[in-house]
């Protein structure tokens, strides 16, 4: 209960002002396509040089929390996920916005973000020592199976044809192998110097989602004004709260999946949203409504990606090992003030540690309040004429892709992938499985190679990859996931066949 003692520090004038700045700034940065939470936090590090340790961390903690949630804004309104974590939010969120329910989608996403986020931080406060042990339990073989579990999601994700979904995933997996191989240093498929560094995931994300949007708007041509103005429906916060509570299953699955996946070092929050989305759909009674603007999709995805924030810091705060890129940046923020995360942090600087954690807790709530406040206004983006929107998204994409690593190469890669994706989408391929392949490829490959090196030196491949409770459990989940997908597929086809027979 030590954390309650330090709540006062969060509400001192300077700290609270920083918390507000971090939260509002984080929402804006998160909503800008191309600025992932990691980048936003890295960009804020220089500001913390001038601040005291606790204050600097308040700023960083608040920014981390709200950039993750802010990514949902562009995901819902523009179908451009701000970070890999928000990909799943586009699937139902953007469809809702297109129907005029943008305000409702935004409100749901902020409310469920806050629920998931608060739960995640509470886990961090109460269960840190236990969670640290779990986080370390995941070795290369387990991470490999976890990545395979992610791959099983690919086929059924946002695609009307399973084969084309799998093929999209395969294209993503292949794109991920471009560039220098991380362990051996061998060059693979580098047919243009821009590809030397491989395909940057954020640049690819912008290209694959934003550019097809731009081109679709171009393809509609010069429409007479008023032809397609979306009526943005007003939606009260109370109704949104009721709506969220109508779907307790999505909220629970999202929160729990997000917390568990966020905890695992090296996988991070990138796939938390997608896995939670897929699991929720499998357990939902309204499976067929997913992808058509179903609230459960938004709730599960956003609850998951904010629930991951708290647990993702467990390995850093207890063992001094950053488990995600964002945690690595936060480590830098601590070291600059001469504070070593781990026992030193909690024993010698409890004020810094607990103020930081508390600020994330308060930050979740502030983020929700501000988010709800702007949701109604932000939803009006849907009414902006297409001619302006296309130009805005194009220019933002170029700036966003460039600022990832100050590289023109990333801009070219972004544009090429985008044009390719536009035409592929016309023929039933989709971006979400492709990006999932791009994310999971390197995780699966690196852990397989590393695991097989350890296995060859010790017990041998069979024992290393197939032995042990955790391995067997993960394999069982993979098998169950595939079996369930196949069973659902067969059942749907039977239903369709029966429907056709009747009519």
């Amino acid at each position, binding site marked *: 209960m030590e954390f309650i003692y330090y709540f006062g520090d969060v509400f001192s004038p300077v700290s609270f002002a920083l918390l507000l700045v971090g939260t509002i700034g984080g929402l804006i940065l998160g909503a800008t396509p191309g600025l992932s939470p990691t980048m936003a936090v890295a960009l804020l590090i220089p500001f913390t040089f001038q601040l005291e340790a606790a204050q600097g961390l308040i700023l960083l903690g608040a920014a981390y929390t709200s950039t993750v949630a802010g990514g949902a804004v562009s995901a819902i309104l523009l179908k451009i996920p701000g970070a890999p974590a928000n990909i799943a939010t586009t699937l139902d969120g953007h469809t809702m916005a297109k129907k005029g329910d943008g305000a409702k989608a935004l409100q749901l996403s902020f409310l469920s973000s806050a629920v998931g986020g608060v739960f995640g931080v509470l886990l961090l406060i109460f269960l840190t020592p236990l969670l640290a042990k779990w986080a370390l339990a995941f070795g290369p073989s387990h991470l490999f199976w976890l990545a395979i579990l992610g791959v099983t999601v690919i086929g059924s994700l946002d695609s009307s044809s399973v084969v084309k979904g799998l*093929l999209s995933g395969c294209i993503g997996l*292949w794109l991920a192998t471009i560039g220098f191989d991380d362990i051996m240093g*061998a060059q693979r498929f580098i047919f243009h110097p821009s590809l030397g560094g491989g395909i940057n995931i954020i640049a690819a994300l912008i290209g694959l989602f934003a550019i097809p949007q731009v081109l679709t708007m*171009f393809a*509609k*041509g010069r429409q007479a004004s008023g032809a397609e103005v979306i009526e943005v429906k007003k939606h009260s916060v109370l109704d949104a709260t009721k709506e969220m509570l109508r779907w307790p299953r999505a909220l629970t699955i999202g929160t729990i999946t997000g917390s568990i996946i966020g905890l695992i070092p090296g996988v991070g929050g990138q796939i938390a949203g997608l896995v939670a989305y897929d699991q929720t759909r499998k357990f939902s009674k309204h499976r067929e409504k997913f992808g058509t603007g179903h609230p459960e999709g938004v709730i599960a995805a956003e609850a998951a990606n904010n629930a991951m924030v708290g647990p993702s810091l467990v390995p850093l705060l207890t063992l001094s090992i950053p488990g995600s890129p964002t945690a690595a940046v936060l480590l830098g923020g601590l070291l600059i003030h001469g504070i070593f995360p781990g026992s030193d942090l909690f024993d010698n600087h409890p004020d810094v540690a607990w103020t930081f954690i508390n600020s994330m807790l308060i930050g979740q709530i502030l983020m929700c309040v501000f988010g709800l406040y702007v949701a109604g206004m932000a939803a009006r983006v849907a009414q902006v004429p297409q*001619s*302006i929107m296309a130009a805005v998204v194009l220019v933002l994409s170029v700036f966003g892709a460039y600022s990832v690593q100050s590289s023109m190469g990333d801009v070219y890669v972004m544009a090429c992938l985008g044009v390719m994706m536009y035409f592929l989408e*016309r023929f039933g391929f989709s971006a979400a499985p492709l990006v999932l392949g791009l994310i999971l490829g390197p995780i699966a490959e690196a852990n397989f190679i590393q695991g097989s090196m350890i296995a060859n030196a010790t017990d041998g491949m069979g024992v290393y990859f197939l032995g042990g409770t955790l391995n067997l459990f993960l394999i069982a989940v993979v098998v169950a996931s595939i079996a369930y997908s196949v069973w659902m597929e067969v059942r749907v086809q039977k239903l369709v066949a029966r429907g056709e027979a009747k009519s």
Partner: protein
Amino acid sequence: MSRFQHIIPSGLIFAVGCWIAFVSFTQQPAEAFLFPRLIASVFVVLSGWTFGKALLGKSRVGVGINRHMILNLTPGLFIAGIYVFWAAKFFGFYTASTAAFFILFSLYDPSPHSEVKTWVRRAITTAVFMLVMYGLFSLLLKVYTPREILF
């Protein structure tokens, strides 16, 4: 939608798949290409399946391309291409973006081109948007974008 339309993209993807398979099975060292080989094998099977289906005319998913769409798309794609691949670097990000934004906006804006009011509105929108971009990326985030002319 015609069978022909489905054959082209799936054929292209199948060709890419075969090329990937060829490259990954011929390049060395073998350890580094183990994973690409695995992916390439699955890739070839799946893309072959899709290509076969397209050849038989059994592909139904997707809306395809039509003439109207291409006519609308071409000028925008052309200008966006010049902007991204050449002008952004050559003129600097802010100059090129201002121009690209103004041209694309004017091109697809349905308001009549003959009225002065339309042009004023377009210029103001462009200016406001570019100011926001400058404030966000240059002043707040301090991203140093290529600058050749003006800022």
